């Protein structure tokens, strides 16, 4: 066994890299296309003139930067990034990081796949349609659902699809207006509230009971003839599996609602438990959480959505079908909710996820679950010996699944060092900042870690060693920890309030400029 490697002399690359728009110099061009040859012009005519009213009148506001500077800028950004492929990202609890096999990147780069066009005739894309079809069969087997769509471009999008299908289902039964509420639990993924709300539903959130399991009596008090569905995650973000989940489903069904299982992250129960046996009508997987495709900094992603036969008629179009001899796209589905994404979703992720699943086989999927849970329990057992650290609902006698929400409250009480300070010190070891918790913090001073099947025992030990050292430092010299990090050259926001003020931050350059003008 290798010795524990903690990167004690880590130094993060970090500087004030300008925004690419700030690098823009008027007139500079990265590419100068040659003039069109005379013979071509003679042959095709005035192509630009034929665009007529489709021709945009104003030039797009694009940065004017040379190729060399674009390349420099891009590499600088990658150097500054503490990305998944260069850090021990056990940190990203609830995100479910796992290794993205390089061979799958080669696969999706193959011209046979990369050069496909979504407007091609079905007969010329039998290969990728076969893969869509085959991956759907695998998902059906893993979940027990009857049909899947791979069209949603991410987990939230799949949950939104579920909410849209719930609405179509109740509308068809004449109860569309009456059933205007969905129920979720406070430790479920936030999209289980947000996506139905976006689809027009009112949201009721259930609290946990004293053991951290969703409160069954609260559900009984919440359901009514207005209940459209329950949207719940299990195990929830604190890592506790709800053993009464079938009871939850039964109560919602008795009230006339549907039950949606958010299994974005199915690492705890692949090959162990299925949505169908718990009675669910719908479920989804984030293929980047469970089936190894890249998180890709927020996409492009794939949310695989599945449902029982009774709901299949509402699935987005087209579905991928097989008539025994050829694969084809079925656009003729009269009761569909319509499209939720252009074309057929992100085919590159479907190919990667299919390849990963084929490499593992059924036994391999089960092994993923076993190792994820084993890794997590190994790490939990070690970490709970760290002074100042406890876990949510510690001592409730329930074994944690694939992640744990810890709490640094004891450390904070003892030393004044809370989770934010620990987090800033941790990056001095070359480990990505960890995920604390969704808001509001129900568990004080939270830290959520998720060591899925990808990580070796050396990775787990490295994480333990680094956190142990931060705890030890906090008791010995809290001011030292408060001033961290030391291995990162610009480590605090100049203006802490700015990030909390929607008037001052923006997600895009255009929005930023607009807000500055106001």
């Amino acid at each position, binding site marked *: 066994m290798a010795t524990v490697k903690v990167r004690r002399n880590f130094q993060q690359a970090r500087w004030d890299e300008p925004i690419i728009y700030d690098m823009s110099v008027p007139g500079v061009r990265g590419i100068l296309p040659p003039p069109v040859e005379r013979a071509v012009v003679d042959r095709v005519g005035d192509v630009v003139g034929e665009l007529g009213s489709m021709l945009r009148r104003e030039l797009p506001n694009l940065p004017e930067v040379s190729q060399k500077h674009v390349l420099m800028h891009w590499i600088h950004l990658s150097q500054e990034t503490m990305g998944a492929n260069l850090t021990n990202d056990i940190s990203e609890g609830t995100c479910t990081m796992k290794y993205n096999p390089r061979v799958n990147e080669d696969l999706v780069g193959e011209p046979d796949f990369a050069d496909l066009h979504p407007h091609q005739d079905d007969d010329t894309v039998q290969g990728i349609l076969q893969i869509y079809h085959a991956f759907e069969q695998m998902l059906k087997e893993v979940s027990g659902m009857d049909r899947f769509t791979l069209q949603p471009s991410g987990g939230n999008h799949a949950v939104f699809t579920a909410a849209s299908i719930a609405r179509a289902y109740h509308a068809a039964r004449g109860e569309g207006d009456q059933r205007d509420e969905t129920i979720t639990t406070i430790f479920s993924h936030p999209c289980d509230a947000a996506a139905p*709300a976006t689809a027009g539903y009112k949201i*009721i959130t259930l*609290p946990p009971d004293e053991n951290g399991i969703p409160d069954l009596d609260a559900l009984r008090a919440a359901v009514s003839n207005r209940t459209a569905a329950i949207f719940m995650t299990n195990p929830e973000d604190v890592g506790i599996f709800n053993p009464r989940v079938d009871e939850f489903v039964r109560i919602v069904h008795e009230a006339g609602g549907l039950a949606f299982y958010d299994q974005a992250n199915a690492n705890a129960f692949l090959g162990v438990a299925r949505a169908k046996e718990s009675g669910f009508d719908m479920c989804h997987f984030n293929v980047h959480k469970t089936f190894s495709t890249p998180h890709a900094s927020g996409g492009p992603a794939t949310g695989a959505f599945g449902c029982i036969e009774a709901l299949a008629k509402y699935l987005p179009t087209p579905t991928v079908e097989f008539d025994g001899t050829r694969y084809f796209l079925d656009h003729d589905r009269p009761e569909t909710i319509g499209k939720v994404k252009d074309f057929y979703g992100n085919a590159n992720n479907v190919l990667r996820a299919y390849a990963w699943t084929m490499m593992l086989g059924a036994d391999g999927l089960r092994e993923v679950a076993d190792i994820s849970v084993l890794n997590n329990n190994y790490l939990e057992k070690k970490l709970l010996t760290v002074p100042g650290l406890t876990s949510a609902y510690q001592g409730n006698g329930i074994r944690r699944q694939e992640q744990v929400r810890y709490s640094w409250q004891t450390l904070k009480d003892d030393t004044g060092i809370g989770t934010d300070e620990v987090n800033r010190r941790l990056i001095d070891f070359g480990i990505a900042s960890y995920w604390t918790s969704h808001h*509001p913090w129900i568990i*004080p001073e939270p830290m959520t870690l998720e060591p899925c099947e990808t990580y070796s025992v050396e990775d787990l030990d490295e994480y333990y060693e680094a956190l142990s050292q931060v705890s030890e430092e906090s008791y010995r010299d809290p001011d030292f920890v408060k001033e961290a990090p030391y291995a990162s050259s610009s480590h605090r926001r100049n203006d802490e309030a700015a990030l909390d003020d929607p008037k001052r931050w923006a997600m895009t350059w255009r929005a930023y400029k607009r807000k500055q003008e106001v």
Partner: protein
Amino acid sequence: MGLRFGLIVNPVAGLGGRVGLKGSDGEALQERARQLGAQPEAHVRAGQVLRELAPHAARFELLTYPSEMGERPARDAGLIPTVIGAIRDGHTTGRDTQRAAAELRDSGVDLLLFAGGDGTARDVCDAVGTTVPCLGIPAGVKIHSAVYAISTRRCAEAAMRVLDGRVRSYREAEVMDIDEDAVRAGRVSAALYGYLKVPNESGLVQSLKSGGQTGEEAALASIARAVVEQMTDDRLYIVGPGTTPRAVMTALGLPKTLLGVDVVRNRELVASDVSERQLLDLLGREGAPGAQIVVTVIGGQGYVFGRGNQQLSPAVIRAVGTDHITVIAARTKLAALEGRPLLVDTGDQQLDRELAGYARVIIAKGESMMVKLAP
């Protein structure tokens, strides 16, 4: 020299606690406490905060009142305060606290620190209201008010954040009025007394616990929209005290009695700051059917009835009906309960039991949370 901190120490705060007197209000009680061997606590607590601030003395000016009301603990902590005002050493009262608060506010302090308990908070509230940021150093026997830090360390931490310019916002926190005689007689009787403006930081009594959350105002406005949209014509809406119900009235364009109960029908004010009797008259005359009570959770303790809204008596609640109660609260306020149930203490145990179960608390437009409610 950057900011100005104000400091008030209530020298007799906390005197009764260790000797079991459940409070220190009034000179007679303070004398009895001293006879029982009580030692003053407030200057010790204030000193703990001041010593943490002392290393940064070059960055702020400390303004305070003479001797035991601040000067002495400040000097003991190694600080050189600017002293204003005058007192009779050893014989200070709530009036001195009120004068000190007003004068420190007028001297332009950026944060007013005061060591004491609920009584001290009431005096500060009388003098300055929400005109200057304040933060309590917990030193009193009983602290029901949400304006105190949970410990002296957290108080110093919050003050440091103010000093560093890292406090993102301030919020109005409850000052409670507890009847000490009733407490000593085994009864808890509390009223909502007023509000002070405190840093919107985690670790205060009513802890928000979620540093990144913004927009208390936006959250309240969203709750208000939810309530207003559900209002039905020709029905009485009895709107309880507090800043959350105030947001409802603001959304209606109506004035709110912050510490009292107002009544609305058809989006118009029917009556302001009503008593139990007036409410019963209204309900009796107009007929209760459809009437609705809108209340929030008071302070960090989770009371829905029986603290600060005694006008909403058992008779009023019964006249309206227990299934016609709308509870509203920001989700951070519920999170701060850390799993503890909401509480009711109407004075009618049978009614308390009927109210128990789960309340569906409105936390935003289109969003509610089921919260256990215990008698």
